[in-house]
């Protein structure tokens, strides 16, 4: 039995103030997510990722299609015992402290008071909010709210965790911590279904990804296969030695950035550039591949598939 089974899910929204027209935000999406996998739901802003998550959570109702989670229909609320959900930009009762909030959510899983206390303490620790446990949420930063949101999504050890843009609003350390949490969940045999518009997050974590664009599914498979990230070029960041200027050949090609230089070049030319930099005693600060961004990737998708038209007009009402 697949963990998540999406069958032709479609959602039209009414748009426009006076003359309401219907716009298709999710178009006949079919998808299967297996139990135990980390599944990345990729797409640029407006692709329909959040819409899909909200449909799966029963927050909005599909125009057409159905879905099953753990073999149960999505309107079966009892199934929610086994799932956790982090909404995009979560917002909570701001008159509660983090501890009270999590205790509140844990009550819906029917834990005893002692069990709740233990779980709340553990999960606050897990998401790095232990020191803010007794602070009212109105004083939380965006990143802290995100952590609280992850905490409530995993406090009851759900079998499937739905995370809508879990890394957004987090600093690099926070993103790293969230990645660790996701990988932990996988180790515990949980299924993680998370959406992102950031390609590297997906690459680093996912067993499989689905790519969504303008409400339509564009491909499913392993990240390497689906989003073939071609490394076009390398980038060297270097700093000239004190009192030295760059030889003209290098100065011409490199771009000055705040006293340092950035040099972009094909991979094959990397080692000769190293030699040049060494020759003038400059210090290399970093060498990194220049990757296609997800936006580039999607631009490519649209160009390669011109038959795919922008938002489908599903007629007027």
């Amino acid at each position: 039995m697949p963990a998540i089974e999406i069958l032709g899910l479609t959602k039209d929204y009414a748009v426009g103030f006076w003359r309401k027209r219907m716009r298709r935000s999710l178009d006949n999406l079919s998808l299967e997510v297996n139990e135990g996998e980390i599944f990345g739901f990729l797409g640029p802003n407006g692709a329909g990722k959040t819409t899909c998550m909200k449909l799966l959570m029963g927050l909005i109702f599909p125009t057409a299609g159905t879905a099953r989670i753990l073999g149960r229909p999505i309107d079966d609320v009892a199934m929610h015992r086994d799932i956790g959900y982090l909404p995009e930009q979560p917002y909570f009762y701001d008159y509660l402290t983090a501890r009270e909030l999590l205790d509140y959510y844990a009550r819906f899983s029917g834990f005893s008071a002692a069990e709740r206390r233990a779980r709340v303490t553990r999960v606050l620790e897990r998401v790095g909010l232990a020191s803010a446990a007794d602070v009212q949420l109105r004083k939380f930063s965006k990143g802290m709210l995100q952590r609280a949101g992850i905490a409530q999504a995993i406090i009851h050890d759900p079998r499937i965790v739905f995370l809508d843009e879990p890394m957004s609003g987090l600093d690099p350390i926070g993103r790293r911590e969230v990645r660790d949490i996701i990988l932990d969940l996988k180790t515990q045999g949980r299924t993680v279904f998370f959406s992102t518009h950031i390609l590297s997050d997906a690459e680093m974590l996912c067993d499989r990804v689905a790519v969504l664009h303008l409400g339509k599914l564009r491909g499913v498979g392993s990240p390497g296969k689906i989003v073939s990230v071609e490394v076009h070029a390398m980038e060297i960041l270097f700093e000239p030695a004190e009192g030295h200027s760059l030889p003209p050949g290098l100065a011409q090609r490199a771009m000055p950035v705040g006293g340092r230089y950035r040099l972009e070049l094909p991979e094959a030319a990397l080692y000769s550039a190293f030699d040049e930099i060494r020759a003038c005693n400059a210090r290399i600060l970093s060498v990194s591949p220049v990757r296609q961004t997800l936006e580039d990737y999607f631009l490519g998708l649209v160009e390669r598939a011109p038959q795919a038209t922008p938002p489908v007009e599903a007629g007027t009402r």
Partner: protein
Amino acid sequence: MSAMPRVVAINTFREAVRDRVLYNLVVFALLMIGAAILVGQISIGIERLVIVNLGLSAISIFGLVMAVFIGVGLVYKEIEKRTLYTLFSKPIRRWEFLVGKYAGLVLTLVINTVLMTIGLAAALLYIGRSFARADVSILIAVYFILLSLALVTAIALFFSCFSSPLLSTLFTLGIYVTGIFAADIRGFGALTSSAFLKGATSVVYYLVPNFRNFNSIAAAAHGESIPFSLVWQNTAYALIYIVLLLIASSAVFSRRNLK
């Protein structure tokens, strides 16, 4: 009450407390103290009448303001602020949430009303009256006020499932005022010769809860006894409306796409 609504109800009560809703009690206490001191100085023999009248009217008005203004935001606020997203990912049904929100506000109103009633009793003691059997009607009057508040809350909750707080307030107060004058409206219809007006006013009379049924303030103030049959009639009357309104609310809310 089953587990899910209870959890929501307790949290709703906690929100009201943290939002300092119960501070209205301070105003009520000052009002009672002022009134008690004043009537003690000026009136002869009508102290009880004045204090009971004033106290019960204040309990009713304070409660009404609370029921309407908190009631219309009960669901709306949770939709607007999207606090429902995480809540509905838990194993709770939409009607359970509604019942919980409703019960939470009614609980707040009950506690507020009980505290105000204690204040009223203290004011009566202050003006030098020991309690008598006739004072039972004061308690019954308070109970009727609570029934009407529970009904107003259900109306406010119903509107808050699909309209903005401002509109919900207008609708709820509109129904409340219409309900107070329901009998007069039908009386007016009976006087006209127009069959349409007769019909329309009757429909209004039967559709809108007749809020005057819940007003026993005058009887309580004059120390008249209130027939016990009225107690269960009013209880049944309010409960029927409340249950129907909650069913209608959950029918609307359960189909709603959240923002």
